[in-house]
């Protein structure tokens, strides 16, 4: 409406707004309020008609007027909250028209945003609950969301509310069912059995949504299923067939389904699930085929033999995109499950012809280097790589090749000596990539020092079953995600959501940064560490024994047998740099048993320490991607509470210092 800008038009409009008849025609009223309200300079004339509209006889006018209040408030921006208006809106919550009631809630929420939104007290909550049946599905979903902030006073009241809500779990609208479920989960946060019960009851609607006609809805439902599976791994195991893919489905749904299948696998359905997944491995889409192979790899951590057999069969296809992923899966698997090494070594010969990409080559070369003594033709395969090293484009492959050949040289010196010499010569004299050249020089000098030193450095363990402790998805309590239920968080996926919420947080925290920044400049980590640790020695005279060496197996056994003695969260920003942390912990005599690789989500680390009385402290550090906190859980081998605070404070200092330096 460009003509509204002119003087005349504004004058005309003023006249129209003062006209009492304008409210007689509800359509015209609504149009005036809706369209004109954003025009600059006419707000003062709008105010009175809006306030009159709140008391209009026609419910249609009241609906528009109630939302008009919110619009007016947001337009003024700086204006203070008008107490009388707020009171009037609160009283309109008792309106006859259900849409007016819901609009009142929305309007109050916007007007009172600064003060934390609309307040739901007991009378309002009960009133809303009683009006629920009169609302349409959109209203119901929204009111259920508002009710989340109500805290029932007594257990009796809580169960009364849950009973009232029961029928909404059966609603034909998925939105209402999910809203009601979330309210159940939040209200019953102290009653785990009620929570489980609710999740069992919405299985039907959720599964129906998963196979719904609307792909978008079924995608959202699948994401929600994955979230539930984190806490209740067996929840959907009987319904695994519902998650089989059909070829006409879009890619993003297939990937979700494969993830779900991985998570619900158990002794009874593993055969069928694997058979289905094997079908996907030959899919026309290379991406989907690779996802399916990785999925089999992750099931292999539990059902190793069957999976290795399937993966070996896939190598027979001689397809590049399949072979490379299979070999990568083998590499990860051998590291976690050493019992499958034999089978993997038998499957490897011949693979090298079908691998062209960097990742696949690295995996194959690593396997040949570490387990070369079990693969008869390993030196000849590596020799081919050495021959063609000049035309190799990826520096990472060359580095891997150097290390692998050094390792193989230790176990099969006769076959490797000549080509190792050639490779080292090439790397040092001709290679242009500095990292590769340095690595070559390093190995060359190492060899000069003597074979024993080489062995000490290169013969690291060939597998690490204790890593499974890190990878194992511990069952997380329902309460840890109840707040995220029925929001966008599960739909984006955990990692992506963490990035999004971090961006939003960063914007908010921009102003607070300078205070931290000054600290970050202030010098070295270690000296400061010492100072701080030594400061509070008098607390409980805790002395940690230096150079404690616990084996990973021992740690795992002890860890599982003990109860958590203390749990606490420390503030933390950003990612962890394991090296720095490990060094800092070593300074205070805390040994690091295992750590996730940097950037893993969730990031975990296991630490151990022992004091002079022989009491061991086992610690888990857990960094969840979405919240900026480091959670520590400490277990003690002897229940001696007096030394615990001392240990916690040492940990706190280290984590505090590292965290500050990071940010």
């Amino acid at each position: 409406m460009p003509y509204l800008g002119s003087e005349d038009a504004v004058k005309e409009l003023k006249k129209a707004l003062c006209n009492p008849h304008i409210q007689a025609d509800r359509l015209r009223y609504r149009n005036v309020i809706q369209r004109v309200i954003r025009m600059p300079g006419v707000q003062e004339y709008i105010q009175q008609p809006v306030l009159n509209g709140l008391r209009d006889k026609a419910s249609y006018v009241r609906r528009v007027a109630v939302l008009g209040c919110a619009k007016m408030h947001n337009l003024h921006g700086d204006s203070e909250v008008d107490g009388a208006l707020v009171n009037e809106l609160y009283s309109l919550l008792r309106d006859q028209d259900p849409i007016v009631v819901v609009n009142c809630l929305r309007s109050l929420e916007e007007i009172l945003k600064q003060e934390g939104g609309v307040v739901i007290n007991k009378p309002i909550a009960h009133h809303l609950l009683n009006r629920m049946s009169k609302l349409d599905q959109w209203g119901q979903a929204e009111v259920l969301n508002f009710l989340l902030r109500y805290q029932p006073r007594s257990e009796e009241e809580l169960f009364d509310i849950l009973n009232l809500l029961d029928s909404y779990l059966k609603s034909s609208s998925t939105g209402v069912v999910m809203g009601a479920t979330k309210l159940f989960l939040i209200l019953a946060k102290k009653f785990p059995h009620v929570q489980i019960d609710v999740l069992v009851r919405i299985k039907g609607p959720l599964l129906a949504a998963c196979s719904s006609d609307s792909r978008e809805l079924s995608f959202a439902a699948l994401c929600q299923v994955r979230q539930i599976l984190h806490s209740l791994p067996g929840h959907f195991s009987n319904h695994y067939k519902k998650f089989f893919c059909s070829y006409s489905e879009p890619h993003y749904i297939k990937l979700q389904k494969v993830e779900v299948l991985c998570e619900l696998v158990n002794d009874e359905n593993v055969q069928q699930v694997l058979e289905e997944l094997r079908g996907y491995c030959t899919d026309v889409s290379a991406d989907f085929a690779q996802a399916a192979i990785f999925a089999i790899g992750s099931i292999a951590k539990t059902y190793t033999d069957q999976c290795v057999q399937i993966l070996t069969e896939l190598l027979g296809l001689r397809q590049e995109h399949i072979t490379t992923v299979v070999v990568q899966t083998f590499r990860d698997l051998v590291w976690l499950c050493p019992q499958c090494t034999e089978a993997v070594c038998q499957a490897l010969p011949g693979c090298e012809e079908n691998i062209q990409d960097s990742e696949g080559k690295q995996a194959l070369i690593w396997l040949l280097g570490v387990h070369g003594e079990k693969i008869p033709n390993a030196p000849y395969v590596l020799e081919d790589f050495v021959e063609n090293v000049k035309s190799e484009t990826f520096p990472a492959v060359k580095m891997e090749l150097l290390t692998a050949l050094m390792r193989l040289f230790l176990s099969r010196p006769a076959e490797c000596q000549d080509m190792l010499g050639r490779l080292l010569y090439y790397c040092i004299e001709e290679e242009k990539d500095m990292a590769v050249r340095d690595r070559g020089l390093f190995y060359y000098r190492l060899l000069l020092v003597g074979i024993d030193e080489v062995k000490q450095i290169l013969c690291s363990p060939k597998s690490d079953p204790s890593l499974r402790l890190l990878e194992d998805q511990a069952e997380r309590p329902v309460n840890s995600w109840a707040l995220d239920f029925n929001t966008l968080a599960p739909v984006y996926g955990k990692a992506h959501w963490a990035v999004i919420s971090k961006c939003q947080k960063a914007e908010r925290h921009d102003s607070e940064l300078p205070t931290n920044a000054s600290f970050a400049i202030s010098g070295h980590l270690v000296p400061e560490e010492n100072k701080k640790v030594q400061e509070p020695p008098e607390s409980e005279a805790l002395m940690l024994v230096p150079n404690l060496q616990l084996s990973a197996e021992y740690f795992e056994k002890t860890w599982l047998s003990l109860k958590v003695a203390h749990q606490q969260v420390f503030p933390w920003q950003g990612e962890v740099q394991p090296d720095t942390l490990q060094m800092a912990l070593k300074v205070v005599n805390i040994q690091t048993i295992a750590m996730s690789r940097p950037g893993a989500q969730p990031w975990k680390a296991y630490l151990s320490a022992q004091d002079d009385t022989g009491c061991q402290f086992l610690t888990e550090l857990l960094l969840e991607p979405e919240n900026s906190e480091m959670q520590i859980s400490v277990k003690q081998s002897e229940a001696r509470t007096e030394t615990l605070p001392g240990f916690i404070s040492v940990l706190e200092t280290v984590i505090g210092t590292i965290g500050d330096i990071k940010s």
Partner: protein
Amino acid sequence: MISQFFILSSKGDPLIYKDFRGDSGGRDVAELFYRKLTGLPGDESPVVMHHDDRHFIHIRHSGLYLVATTSENVSPFSLLELLSRLATLLGDYCGSLNEETISRNVALVYELLDEVLDYGYVQTTSTEILRNFIQTEAVVSKPFSLFDLSSVGLFGAETQQNKVAPSSAASRPVLSSRSDQTQKNEVFLDVVERLSVLIASNGSLLKVDVQGEIRLKSFLPSGSEMRIGLTEEFCVGKSELRGYGPGIRVDEVSFHSSVNLDEFESHRILRLQPPQGELTVMRYQLSDDLSSPLPFRLFPSVQWDRGSGRLQIYLKLRCDLPPKSQALNIRLHLPLPRGVVSLSQELSSPDQKAELGEGALHWDLPRVQGGSQLSGLFQMDVPGLQGPPNHGPSASAAPLGLGPASLSFELPRHTCSGLQVRFLRVSFSPSGNANPHKWVRHLSHSDAYVIRI
């Protein structure tokens, strides 16, 4: 709370754009959305996307993108449901939903959006209530079609076609012109079932899933009441028993909130006062326990000569429907090993068609009569697969990468669960004309009927 809503054509042209809150971006948001959508990496889902504090949530409906943006962490289920409801609503008012009807009815669409959403909040989505506020009339396009010509009739003589509902009859706007008093009193009731099946290579049934719904599209004046009688042997849940014999059993049923279930327990009758427009009266699911036999069986036999790389597939498709029924638009999709070249075929009847595409064999059968059996013999060369078979079983076993076969088809006048509508009666009509045209259709279809080979 929705900040903006827009509709894009399949090529990304904005057709409708509406900003509800004036707090963000501008029209170029629509363009941004399309750029993000097309540039998305393969492993990310396009359903929800994020840019600059703004979430884009969209559905695809008949080739159009219906997109909402919001800055709050809303319930994805409610928002997706709202978008599909909007799609139905626009379909109700414009006759059908596609690029052409939207661009012809821009004014009407904006008017609807104004009523449905205020300041980004849903007000009402009921076709009935909205009727009171909508002034604009839909512009209906009448595409030229041979079907229309054929129903004109020779010298005005009444032809058989007049008694059959034309397929386009249901796709007209609810709100046809007020002045038009000759408006037809019509009501369409569809029982639609979607079947998904998985059959193992030895022929045993691994999974059956039926998703059914009863859809009503009513053009009757509002306030009319109707009764829908379902098969009396219809049982819900595993334990209920009705009538003689196995009955017609479904696992779960949910009804639209406006359905009156007083007579459901005793006589399986649903009573309702349908608003004009489309309405899903009932939804039901059934899995793993089907009373009627499956519509299709496939008997494949595969011969593979490793040495020459020659692959021969003989497919026999048997239709187990009753002889009077038939299946339409059957399409068999069979993924083949990589590198297949040259297809030669021998099909059992001339109207069938087979071709290679996207690494798979497509076999199209326009129509299969119940009880009949069709076959196709396909021969192809797979040069990439030959070579030294280190560890293969016998030479004639199927190569990896072949199958599973999936079928898609339609079964008119057939429901897999056996559910039928016994009667549809309009028990009360405010206009006094209690004899409207009633059309009841039953249809099963499937796009995931998978048979492993």
